[in-house]
């Protein structure tokens, strides 16, 4: 019996094999949304917990990777909805990338503040599309909405951000 069939039938060893195959990829996807390594680890486990509970609904001929990413996205979105908006970036990930030193600290703080105030569904797509530069079709599949709706959410998120930043007195390039 194939691995996915055994998993769907409730075989724990098959589940462990799938977990080990996909945990890094799921973590990688989640950490780019929540931007906190500890939370991303917890959400990776939560994702596989949801996967295990939903194994009856998984069709062995289906795409496990895409299914796992969709569940991971939902788990991350649930976290964004419940987490405090003013959460600070942890030092490890805040300094992991090369933020432009030319951009003043104050401006970066204003951007973060405005970004964390975005509704979770806009923040999710804005993070993936604008910061991580994931293609719209991949985001659409992961979120479970159409590509057109992803574009609409990015557009609305940008509009809200621009308003907030303008009210905070930050300089925003394009109108």
């Amino acid at each position, binding site marked *: 019996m194939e691995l996915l069939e055994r998993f769907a039938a409730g075989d724990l060893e098959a589940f462990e094999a799938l977990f080990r195959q996909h945990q890094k990829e799921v973590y990688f996807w989640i950490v780019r949304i929540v931007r906190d390594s500890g939370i991303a680890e917890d959400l990776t486990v939560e994702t596989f917990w949801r996967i295990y509970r939903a194994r009856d609904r998984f069709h062995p001929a289906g795409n496990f990777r895409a299914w796992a990413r969709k569940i991971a996205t939902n788990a991350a979105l649930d976290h964004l909805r419940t987490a405090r908006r003013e959460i600070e970036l942890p030092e490890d990930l805040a300094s992991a990338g090369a*933020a432009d030193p030319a951009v003043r600290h104050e401006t970066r703080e204003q951007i973060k503040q405005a970004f964390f105030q975005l509704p979770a569904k806009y923040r999710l797509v804005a993070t993936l599309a604008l910061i991580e530069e994931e293609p719209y079709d991949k985001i659409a599949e992961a979120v479970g909405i159409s590509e057109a709706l992803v574009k609409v959410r990015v557009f609305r998120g940008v509009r809200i951000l621009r308003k907030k930043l303008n009210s905070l007195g930050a300089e925003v390039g394009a109108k």
Partner: protein
Amino acid sequence: MSNEENNKGIKELLQQAFAPLKDPELRRDLWPQMLQKLSQQPARVSWFDWALAAILSAVLLLFPGAILALLYHL
């Protein structure tokens, strides 16, 4: 104005505030944590227990006087 143009300024600002995570590493194996979560799975109530609870509720509804007798025997 296209979406791309509309997003451009904000995109640059966001990438300066939150630099893209190029290659975040998973620092440990999460399987032990997964096993712990699986072992915490709440015990499922069997259909027999549900049936007993339903019968008891029905008896108490039909014969409220039995409540006192039941409490006496508890």
